[in-house]
């Protein structure tokens, strides 16, 4: 175990972990929002994120982005990417609700049916991105769907440069952008849920759906809203992922989704601030573990954390569901 490396560059590993965890946290919000209101684990949420990454690449390609655009252009492309990803991910999440989950709710389907449906939807979306679209439109959009199930590289929008260096710890421009954008998105969501009339409606349905209806809350509208909100957060995560890592793949959501789900469970699924905490914590643990052992262990950590949390503290670090803890 490489303690020298971990403690010798502890600051650097912490910075790396936090910027990674911020992306997990953004995705985790989608699991937590839907769970908080419907007690449903939307396993297809990982693909909602992946759709967003393809949308980012699609928009960048369509608007002719080259490697390393100038600062003004880069900001424009970030904005275009954000809009494309938010629309694509939000739209996909909404479609899942309208096409699959709502009809099940109308039939009073048991929880297991929802769970199997969610897993099924996840697989369907993976194969649509990995097989169906390459076969149907691969010729038309070669940068996106040129080859089946392949890793697709993206142009570099911002070159990584150290922004601040303290001792031997440096924070890159990209890390700072990822971390603070994610935080900003989460702060906006938190404000929306806790301070607006619609947010109050969401919390009411989460806490007591029948009484929410007695107060005039349209439950279907609240449910659509949370799917869209979770989707938009996943879209933002997709943009940040694209900026930071610069590639995507139809199967990207599998491991990443499980990590984000772990982050949500770790923080206390249904709890928005818990998702932030869980995401950052997982990012840190992962980077520390990869340093101590080897990076091959990185992905294992998330699953170990998930199992340990489920065994010893299934309500997560913060516990309580959406709105109950006023968070």
């Amino acid at each position, binding site marked *: 175990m490489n303690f020298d490396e971990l403690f010798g560059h502890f600051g650097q590993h912490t910075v790396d972990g936090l910027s990674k965890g911020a992306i997990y946290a953004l995705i985790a919000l989608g699991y937590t929002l839907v769970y908080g209101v419907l007690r449903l684990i939307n396993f297809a949420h990982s693909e909602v994120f992946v759709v967003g990454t393809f949308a980012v690449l699609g928009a960048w390609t369509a608007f002719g982005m080259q490697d390393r655009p100038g600062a003004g252009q880069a900001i424009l492309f970030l904005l275009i990417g954000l809009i494309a990803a938010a629309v694509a991910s939000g739209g996909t999440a909404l479609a899942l609700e309208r096409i699959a989950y709502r009809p099940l709710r109308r039939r009073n389907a048991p929880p297991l049916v929802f769970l199997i449906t969610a897993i099924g939807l996840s697989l369907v979306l993976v194969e649509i991105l990995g097989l169906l679209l390459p076969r149907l439109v691969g010729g038309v959009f070669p940068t996106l769907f040129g080859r089946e199930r392949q890793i697709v590289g993206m142009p570099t929008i911002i070159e990584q440069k150290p922004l601040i260096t303290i001792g031997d710890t440096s924070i890159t421009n990209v890390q700072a952008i990822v971390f603070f954008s994610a935080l900003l998105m989460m702060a906006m969501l938190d404000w929306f849920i806790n301070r607006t*009339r619609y947010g109050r409606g969401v*919390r009411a349905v989460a806490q007591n759906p029948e009484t929410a*209806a007695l*107060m*005039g*809350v349209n439950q279907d509208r609240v449910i659509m809203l949370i799917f869209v909100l979770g989707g938009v957060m996943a879209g933002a995560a997709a943009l940040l992922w694209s900026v930071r890592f610069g590639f995507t793949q139809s199967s990207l959501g599998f491991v990443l989704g499980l990590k984000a789900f772990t982050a949500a469970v770790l923080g206390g699924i249904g709890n928005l601030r818990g998702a932030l905490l869980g995401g950052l914590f997982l990012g840190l643990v992962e980077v520390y573990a990869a340093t101590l052992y080897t990076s091959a262990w990185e992905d294992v950590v998330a699953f170990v954390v998930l199992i340990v949390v489920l065994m010893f503290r299934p309500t997560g670090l913060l516990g309580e569901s959406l*709105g109950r*803890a*006023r968070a």
Partner: protein
Amino acid sequence: MLLELDNVTVAYGRIEALHGISLHVDEGEIVALIGANGAGKTTTMRAISGIRALAGGAIRFAGEDISRLRADLRVGRGLCQSPEGRQIFPGMTVLENLDMGAYTRRDSAGIAADLERVFGLFPRLAERRKQAGGTLSGGEQQMLAVGRALMSRPKLLLLDEPSMGLAPLVIKQIFDIVTEINQQGTTVLLVEQNAQQALSRAHRGYVLETGRIVKEGTGQELLHDPAVKEAYLGVA
């Protein structure tokens, strides 16, 4: 006639809980619906509010057939319920719970005025406005549930067992306020097992037994009815 139930039938699965009940509430009245545990009082209230679908019959409110209207839309028509067991949103503050009552409204000046009115009726709620609803005492939660329903400025206030589980002094306080609300112009349909209190406050009343209305009359008539006395007022 503000509210009219015409031969309403409600079933849970294959079991019918209401076997065609008819009743009405006129503007300005307090109408009591009394009956033993399991008689179907709550089911009646759920049907009126629209969270339980009808198996037969019709409900009319202010001249409109609302039998198939979605529950959340009935609030805007002027129907609001304080449900059995109070059902406060536990993680919301007192103020947020009251705001939930005004969820369908957009007239902020009117909402602010009604908030003052509710705080006037229930000064305890004003003191505790920042406190989480789940941490209130039973009596305070009941006040909050009634206040929350009032925040929708209902034409008809539905109260399902407001006295349940409360101390006699608190019960009297709640019923005093119900009377006051009614005198200020709100029509009230009151469901109770506490028949004594309910009937002495009500203009009219109905007696529900295993899903059927078996008796109706003015509050005083029912209070002095020998059968009602024996079954519901604990007088032999």
